[in-house]
């Protein structure tokens, strides 16, 4: 592991990798803000009061767990996912950042997502 020692890094080098927050960066961010606001306003102005007509897709899966298994099961899965997410930094303890070096961890999360997706699909059937 080689760490960059701040004092050895020349000013030019650090300028290459980063740039000042003021004024350009903040101006661009404000630009993005206006772009998004614009999109939402125009979408609404096209007189479509709601973007989607169906119940929010993220809850269909939970409702199906409640229907198919039991209310308690639905609640337990929700709590389990929240706890799993909260515990994530302590479960995945390696210092690796790149997805390719965290394959097992990705597999576990994919399994959880697949489980949820399966119930969502069943909810629509």
């Amino acid at each position, binding site marked *: 592991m080689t760490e960059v020692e701040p004092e050895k890094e020349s000013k030019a080098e650090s300028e290459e990798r980063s740039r000042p*927050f003021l004024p350009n960066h903040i101006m661009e961010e404000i630009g993005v803000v206006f772009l998004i*606001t614009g999109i939402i*306003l125009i*979408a609404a102005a096209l007189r479509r009061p709601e973007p989607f007509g169906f119940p*929010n897709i993220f809850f269909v899966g939970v409702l199906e767990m409640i229907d198919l298994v039991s209310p308690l099961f639905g*609640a337990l899965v929700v709590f389990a996912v929240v706890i799993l997410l909260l515990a994530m*930094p*302590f479960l995945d303890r390696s210092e690796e950042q790149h997805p390719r070096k965290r394959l097992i961890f990705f597999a576990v999360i994919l399994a959880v997502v697949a489980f949820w997706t399966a119930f969502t699909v069943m909810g629509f059937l």
Partner: protein
Amino acid sequence: MDKESTGALSKALLPLGKMFTKSRDWIIARSGLERFMEETESKTVPKHALNPAYCLGGVTLVAFLILALTGFFLANYYEPSEGGAQRSIQIISTEIHFGFYAKSIHSWAANVMVIAVLLHVLRVFITGSYKNPRELTWMGGVILLVFTFLFVLTGYVLPMDERSDFAITSMSGAFGWLRGIPHVGGVFNWASDTVGEALTGSYWMHVTVLPIAIILFLLVHFYLIRKHGISGPL
């Protein structure tokens, strides 16, 4: 513009500019913001953070601010009662100036926020940005996600239409049993299967508890992001 007219213009504007600088310095001096301004002026942003995937938290924030603004507007006209909900929404959509747009923008922005926050979580997950030292940023984020979903569910109850039934069924099915907790179960009235109770509880959550809670957690989120900076590139 030739030199002379620019000169005239800037001369005319000079007092205004001086007034602006003076008032700005006055505010900074009186409020003790010097340190904050100095820090902000010397702050830099890493280039990789300009990638759109790193802007999703910002998009979520903008969507939230739009929701807050349009929500303030709507709350002035909405009536949280079984008979009043549909009637007041009808009035908002047809009689109140800008009411239709406020309601429509509110529901569009809600969808933008949910999609943006999920993509934000995906980005943070893929880049492994929840690791040391950003564990608390992540954990506070998970709570923000829970708040966001509760906003959506309780929001669905308010119009008292078909989707309200769906929201009430989901919430009472999964969390209705929490109301049985002795003494404090009433806090979970939003998860009641009685329409009136679910409406009052949802309204209470949607316009008082959740806004305060999410703002507190957002402040912590932003404080931590500023403290640790954005995580390194892959």
